[in-house]
């Protein structure tokens, strides 16, 4: 073996050895209940600061057709594998219904045609994944606020929960089912839409057919695909893991503005 190679290896070994106790300490702190709470509470500081700067109406940047990603990466579930979804897909989603219930005075059951009859918004926006990649796509759909107005919120309504058709993790109790939640401020934001079309065509299966959420001031995992049911709630702590979403239950922030 060449001497310089072994010296480099020794140097790397020394650095690894020096970082080991520091890292072990960090790992222990990550799993420690109190410090874990401090770590997670940073989210509240970030959300408070962003809400102060953003307000209710600041719009996410919109782009032109020239900026569209040539290929928009599909992430998460590419096709839900339930028999129910397969049947819906086979019939061109004509049997699909969007249920709207929970703290509403008028529960709704909407067909895709019902949604398409409502006024629509088209926007070209950037999709930012928590992993670090970005893609630009065009989305068309109906404002979530309009649907909530049709259903008329009851007093005490604070969050909108999205129940999806896809199961990311196979579990016996169904806790691997994808779901998400946002608060009313984001639900009534003008760019928050239920999208049924992407880049001028019906929403592809890989991107959440027949309907997905777009909530443009937050990261990709908030944009729930394969929507089946929208539930208005006062709190989400009794739902599945209690943190308000599939990835939130696995440690990610509920407020995904950064």
């Amino acid at each position, binding site marked *: 073996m060449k001497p310089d190679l072994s010296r480099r290896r020794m140097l790397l070994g020394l650095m*690894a050895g020096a970082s080991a106790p520091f*890292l072990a300490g960090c790992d222990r702190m*990550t799993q420690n209940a109190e410090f874990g709470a401090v770590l997670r509470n940073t989210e509240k500081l970030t959300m408070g600061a962003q809400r102060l700067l953003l307000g209710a109406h600041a719009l996410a940047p919109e*782009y032109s057709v020239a900026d569209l990603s040539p*290929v928009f990466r599909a992430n998460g579930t590419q096709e839900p594998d339930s028999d129910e979804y397969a049947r819906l897909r086979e019939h061109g989603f004509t049997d699909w219904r969007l249920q709207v219930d929970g703290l509403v005075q008028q529960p709704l059951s909407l067909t895709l045609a019902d949604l398409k009859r409502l006024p629509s918004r088209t926007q070209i926006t*950037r999709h*930012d994944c928590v992993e*670090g990649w970005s893609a630009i796509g065009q989305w068309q759909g109906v404002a979530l606020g309009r649907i909530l107005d049709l259903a008329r919120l009851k007093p005490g309504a604070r969050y909108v929960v999205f129940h999806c058709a896809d199961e990311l993790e196979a579990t016996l109790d169904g806790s691997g089912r994808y779901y998400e939640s946002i608060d009313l401020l984001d639900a009534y934001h003008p760019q928050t839409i239920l999208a049924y079309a992407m880049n001028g065509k019906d929403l592809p299966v890989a991107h959440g057919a027949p309907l997905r959420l777009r909530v443009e001031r937050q990261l990709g995992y908030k944009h729930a695909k394969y929507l089946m049911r929208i539930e208005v709630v006062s709190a989400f702590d009794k739902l599945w893991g209690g943190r308000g979403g599939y990835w939130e239950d696995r*440690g*990610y922030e509920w407020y995904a503005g950064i």
Partner: protein
Amino acid sequence: MTGQLVRRHSVAVRITHWVNVLCLSILLMSGLQIFNAHPRLYWGKYGADPDPAFITIAQGFPTWLTIPSYQDLASGRNWHFLFAWLLVINGLIYLVHGFLRGHVRRDLWPERDQLKPRHLWQEIMDHARLRFPKGDEARRYNALQKMTYLLVALVLLPLMVLTGLTMSPGLDAAFPFLPDLFGGRPSARTLHFITASALVLFVVVHVLMVVLSGFWNNMRSMLTGRYAIEHSGSDHEA
């Protein structure tokens, strides 16, 4: 040792320096954890797997360099953002103190005589020969040192914060000029990585200079504020 002890670093500089050491170490290591979730960098307004990469590090960074020391993007992000807040608050304290109390003007801004080409050349040669100033010249930072510290405090660290904030979809809605300024979110992520690399390079050279130019004297000055000035002119070995 012969010589004289002078007050070199104020309490504010000493505290913010060591808070910075902690923050930058954790930000680097949790940053590598986040980088490993998608170890490709792009230039432009969009960038994902189907698009050509600007820089790719196929296997990502080794786990002994990441926080946590196993793959866990969610926890890595939590660490990164907590210490990013601390870095920003610490940096603001440093800058407000530095500008109001004269630290930047008095200690960091190069003086006229230091900027003469002949002097600068002399400094470069002295550095190359590892000859460090003594006597009165040791009372102030040399010009290369001053320019490096100014570059780090006024350019690299603010750039780090701004490119980091540009990756936030929330802040891009609040400040749409941010992604435009850096040519897009993927470009900002690439610049974040390059600037971090520049800071790592700075730290390596900085620590090397601390060791070579009198480790204990330098450490004492950054801990207690007191720095020993050696007499110049003589060839004594301390």
